[in-house]
C-alpha cells in the first residue's frame, strides 16, 4: 500500500457515514458526565487541605492557580480553593456549604462559621468572618468580627456542630442573620441581605406522655410542606437525619405530635417551597 492508497483510505474512512447514537446511549453518556464533578483538581485540593492546620497554607498556594482560572472566564468570579465550615448564601436565596472549585456569583455572601478556614478568590476566610462578592472580589462585610478572632464565641450557632440541649425554644442564629420571621437584615453595603433560610419559631409541650410541636408559618413564603424530624444532633443549616415525625402540608394546622418523645433530643422543622427548596428552619428541644 503506497502513500496515495493510504491517503485515499484515510479519506474514505473519514467520510464514512456513521449513524448517530440512539437516545438511550446519548442519555447514558450525559448521565455519566453529569455524575462526575466539574473542576475536580480544585475539589481534590479542597479535600486534602481541609484536614489539618497546614491546610490554610496549602489552600493559599492553591488559590493562586484558582484565581488564574477564574480570570480566564469572561466574567471574573472568586473561586473557592478550600473551605471548611463556610456557608455561602447565593443571591437567589439558596444557602449552601462552600465546596472547593465553586465559583461564587456577584452578590453572594460568605459566612465563616466558628471553625471556618478557607481561601476564596485568594482571600483567607477565617472564623466568624463575613464577606460579600462585589465586582468579582470578596469584600469584607462590616458585621464580621474578623478572621483572626477567637474560635469560641457565644453568638453564632449557625455552623456549630450540634444543637443546644438546654435551648428551650429554637432559632439557632447569628446576630447578622437573626431575623426569624422579620425583614431581612442589611449588610455593610446597606443593601438588604438575602435570608434564604428563615428561622421558624417553634414551641414544644409535653402532654400525656406525648410531645406536641407547633410553629408559626414564615411570612411571605410559598411554603408547600413542613417536615418535622427528631434528632440528637443538628448543624443548624440543613434538615438532619433522624426520625421523621410528620410531614405537614401547607394550609393544615401547623402542629405535629411525637407519641414517643426522647429526652435530650431536638425537633427540627424544615419548611420547603416549590421544587423542594428549603425555605426556613427551626428547632426546639424536647421538653423534659
Amino acid at each position, binding site marked *: *500500500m*503506497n*502513500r496515495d492508497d*493510504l*491517503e485515499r*483510505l*484515510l*479519506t*474514505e*474512512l*473519514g*467520510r*464514512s*457515514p*456513521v449513524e*448517530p*447514537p440512539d437516545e438511550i*446511549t*446519548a442519555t*447514558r*453518556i*450525559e448521565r*455519566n*458526565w*453529569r455524575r*462526575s*464533578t*466539574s*473542576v*475536580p483538581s480544585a475539589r481534590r485540593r479542597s479535600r486534602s487541605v481541609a484536614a489539618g492546620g497546614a491546610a490554610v497554607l496549602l489552600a493559599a498556594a492553591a488559590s493562586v492557580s484558582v484565581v488564574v*482560572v477564574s480570570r*480566564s*472566564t*469572561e*466574567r471574573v*468570579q472568586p473561586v473557592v480553593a478550600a473551605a471548611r465550615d463556610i456557608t455561602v448564601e447565593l443571591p437567589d436565596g439558596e444557602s449552601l456549604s462552600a465546596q472547593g472549585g465553586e*465559583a461564587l*456569583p456577584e452578590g453572594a455572601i460568605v459566612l465563616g462559621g466558628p471553625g471556618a478556614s478557607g481561601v476564596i478568590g485568594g482571600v483567607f476566610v477565617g472564623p466568624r468572618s463575613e464577606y460579600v462578592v462585589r465586582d468579582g472580589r470578596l469584600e469584607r462585610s462590616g458585621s464580621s468580627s474578623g478572621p483572626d478572632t477567637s474560635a469560641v464565641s457565644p453568638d453564632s450557632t449557625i455552623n456549630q456542630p450540634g444543637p443546644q440541649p438546654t435551648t428551650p425554644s429554637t432559632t439557632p442564629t447569628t446576630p447578622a442573620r437573626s431575623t426569624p420571621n422579620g425583614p431581612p437584615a442589611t449588610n455593610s453595603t446597606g443593601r438588604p441581605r438575602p435570608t434564604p433560610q428563615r428561622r421558624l419559631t417553634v414551641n414544644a409541650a409535653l402532654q400525656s406522655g406525648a410531645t406536641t410541636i407547633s410553629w408559626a408559618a414564615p411570612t411571605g413564603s410559598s411554603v408547600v410542606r413542613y417536615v418535622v424530624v427528631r434528632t440528637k444532633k443538628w448543624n443548624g443549616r440543613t434538615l438532619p437525619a433522624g426520625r421523621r415525625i410528620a410531614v405537614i402540608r401547607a394550609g393544615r394546622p401547623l402542629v405535629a405530635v411525637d407519641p414517643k418523645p426522647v429526652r435530650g433530643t431536638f425537633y427540627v422543622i424544615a419548611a420547603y417551597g416549590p421544587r423542594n427548596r428549603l425555605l426556613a428552619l427551626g428547632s426546639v428541644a424536647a421538653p423534659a
Partner: protein
Amino acid sequence: MPREAAGPAGTSHLDASHCSRVDNTDEPDDRTLVARARLDPDAFALLYRRYLHRIHAFTVRRCGDRHLADDITALVFERAWKNIHRVEVGPAGLGPWLYRIAANEVSTHFRRNGRKERALERLAGAPVSLAADPADTVNLRLDLESLRAALDRIPARHHEVIALRYLAGLSPQETAEAMGTTPQVVAALLYRALGSLERVIGPEADSHER
C-alpha cells in the same frame, strides 16, 4: 498530503457544521456556552448535544466498534466536563479540543489494551461499507482493519495528527489549533505520520495479500 479543497475538512458529507459554526444562529456560540458551562451543567449539556454525533462518529470510525465508541465517547465528554474550566475556545470553537481528547482517549485505550483487544476489534469488524462490490468490500474491510491496527502502532503524536486531520475531518488550521501548534508544523508532522503509517501498514498489507 491532504488537499485543502478536496481534503477531509472540506467534504460535504461530514456532519453538516464544523466546530464553532452553528446551524441555528439563535443558539449561543461555543465560547458563550463554555463560559456558562463553568457554572452551569445545562450549558455544557447544550455543547454535549451539539458535538455528540461528531465525536461519536469520530470514535466509531477510529475504533470500528460502536459499543467501544460509546464508551470512549462517554469518557471524552466526562473529561471535557471535568476540564471545561481550562479550555480556551479558539476561532474554530470547541470541536478541535473535543476531537483531540477523543483521539487521545482512543489512543490510550488501544495502547493500554494491546494486541488482544485489537484482535477482538478485528473480529467485530468495521461498521462501514464503502464499496459497492462485495469483493471490494472485503478488500476494503481488510484495508481498514490494517489501517486501524497500524494507527495503534505509530507514535502518539503521529496518530493524533492523522486522526484529527482525516478521521475528524479538521482543516489544517483547526488541527493546528487542537494540537497547540501552527499549520506548518501540522503539515510537516502529517507528512512524517503518513510515513510512519506506511512503514507499519506495509508488512500487514502484505500478510493479508498472502
